């Protein structure tokens, strides 16, 4: 740390002293402000936009926000890279398929159950692999994704490799089309995820996560129950990812392992927080909106393979030149101006 030949990297900084603290005021402002924003946003979009396509696209972007935010709880805050987002996401989606076949539960309940299932997977995987160095955890998540995919491919009840068709209900429980209903649910989930992330960030739990990220041995020596906290992170992160996957069957009406376990979920959920910035709840939102919009535009105008290429290249470029993401760049500017 004190060696002369280390170049000066802007460290991921918790933002205290740069973004003014005033925590109690800030928290109240956030809750009220964000609910207001959400409601206004919902009203505007539901009532003013009639082209269904925008709801499709909006759903995608919101889904990415949730995935990116969920990933960041384990990745950015705690320092453990998860390459298996696809697994958690797909477990949520396939839980919904099973529930859809067996019952007629409303979608929000399916989301909760999907979240529980993915949370259990997150817990289990964490318990097996979190005692190892972070690198082995990352590799294990890759392994998990493939194992989960193989299991689903061989499970005929949910269609196996052929996939399964899900009929979208005619009527939504609230006014408007079913897509608008799913979109509203995803908006609610987005708000919940961001609220959770922000709350964690400013809490003792978040401080503990940061300590683990910075130096796990030292954190343990300082009294942080590292295994317990890491399990909380993996479980919570997995649960949120699962919840975001649960409405998918109704959204796409045809679900197959190749698309639901698609590596694009893994890359996106890594790229969005990295490009947006991993130290704050704002980063994943910035990254998700930016990359999500680029991908929507690219898919429509060029091709869907090319848009994935763009995401991959952006990830590599940002990781090299702006390791703290866009939020990190903004923070450095502020700090430079203050000094």
């Amino acid at each position, binding site marked *: 740390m004190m060696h002369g030949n280390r170049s000066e990297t802007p460290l991921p900084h918790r933002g205290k002293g740069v973004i003014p603290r005033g925590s109690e005021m800030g928290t109240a402002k956030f809750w009220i402000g964000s609910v207001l924003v959400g409601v206004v946003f919902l009203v505007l979009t539901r009532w003013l936009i009639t082209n269904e396509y925008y709801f499709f696209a909006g759903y995608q972007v919101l889904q990415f926000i949730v995935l990116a935010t969920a990933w960041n709880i384990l990745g950015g805050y705690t320092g453990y890279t998860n390459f298996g987002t696809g697994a958690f996401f797909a477990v949520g989606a396939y839980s919904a398929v099973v529930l859809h076949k067996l019952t007629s539960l409303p979608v929000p309940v399916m989301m909760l159950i999907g979240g529980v299932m993915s949370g259990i997977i997150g817990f289990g995987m964490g318990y097996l692999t979190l005692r190892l160095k972070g690198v082995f955890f990352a590799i294990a998540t890759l392994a998990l994704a493939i194992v989960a995919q193989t299991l689903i491919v061989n499970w005929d009840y949910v269609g196996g490799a052929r996939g399964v068709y899900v009929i979208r209900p005619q009527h939504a429980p609230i006014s408007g089309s079913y897509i608008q209903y799913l979109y509203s649910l995803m908006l609610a989930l987005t708000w919940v995820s961001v609220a959770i992330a922000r709350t964690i960030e400013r809490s003792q739990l978040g401080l503990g996560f*940061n300590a683990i990220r910075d130096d796990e041995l*030292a954190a*343990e020596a*300082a009294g942080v129950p590292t295994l317990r906290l890491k399990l909380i992170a993996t479980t919570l992160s997995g649960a949120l990812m699962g919840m975001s996957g649960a409405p998918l069957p109704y959204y796409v009406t045809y679900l197959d392992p190749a698309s639901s376990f698609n590596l694009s979920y893994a890359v996106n959920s890594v790229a969005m927080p990295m490009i947006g910035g991993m130290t704050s709840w704002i980063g994943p939102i910035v990254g998700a909106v930016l990359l999500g919009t680029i991908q929507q535009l690219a898919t429509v105008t060029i091709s869907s393979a090319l848009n994935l290429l763009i995401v991959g290249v952006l990830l590599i470029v940002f990781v090299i030149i702006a390791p703290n993401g866009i939020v990190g760049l903004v923070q450095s500017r502020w700090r430079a101006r203050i000094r």
Partner: protein
Amino acid sequence: MAEPILTVSGLGKRFGGFVALENINITVETGERLGLIGPNGSGKSTLVNCLSGALHHDSGSVTFDGRRIDGMPAYQRTRLGLARSFQLPKPFRSLNLVDNLRIPLLYTVNARHGAHLSSTEIDARCRALLADVALADKARRLPRDLTQVEMRKLELARAVASAPRLLFADEAMAGLSPSEVEEILVVLFRLNEQGITIVLIEHIMRAVMSFSTRLVVLVAGQKIADGAPQEAIRNPEVERAYLGE
């Protein structure tokens, strides 16, 4: 005579075929200043790691404050009152100094039965701890803005923040100038006066000799001397270990 605060019985540790520690028996009396010395590779750091819980020992038992702590994870040992500082300082790089100290206060002190410091009290304690090691003016800075000796002091402050009863100071002075060594020694003496039992693991003989009330010498994973500092170093085996055959 009070119970010793730490009793190590027959402790052994191997890495594959390599025996790092063999049949280590040490008692640490409450309130004493114990020096632990030995040539490089003698197992001092391994011993600290085993006692603090960073490593699991293979054989023997460790009793702290009357409790067997074998197999207990490190964070629980810290909460019981057994703290250690690291040989190479390991600060939380993305947190400022206050937050670095806040972690042990929140997760150790506040986690103990009965204790519950409010956030104002915690803030106050952080600043007091920083002031004790003359780092108060850098409270809002990041660890990378610190000099070598300041990092060492932060490392000690963080260990002390957990309000330990026993502190392992692992080579806190390596590479420092004589006046810097003196600075650290002053801090350690003061901590001992406040009631913290200190085990000083160190290479700098002058510091160890002036600090310790008792000396334990480790060579090649075995304890070869244990007693008053002046006698321990006159032990022929110790001389041989340091000066060669």
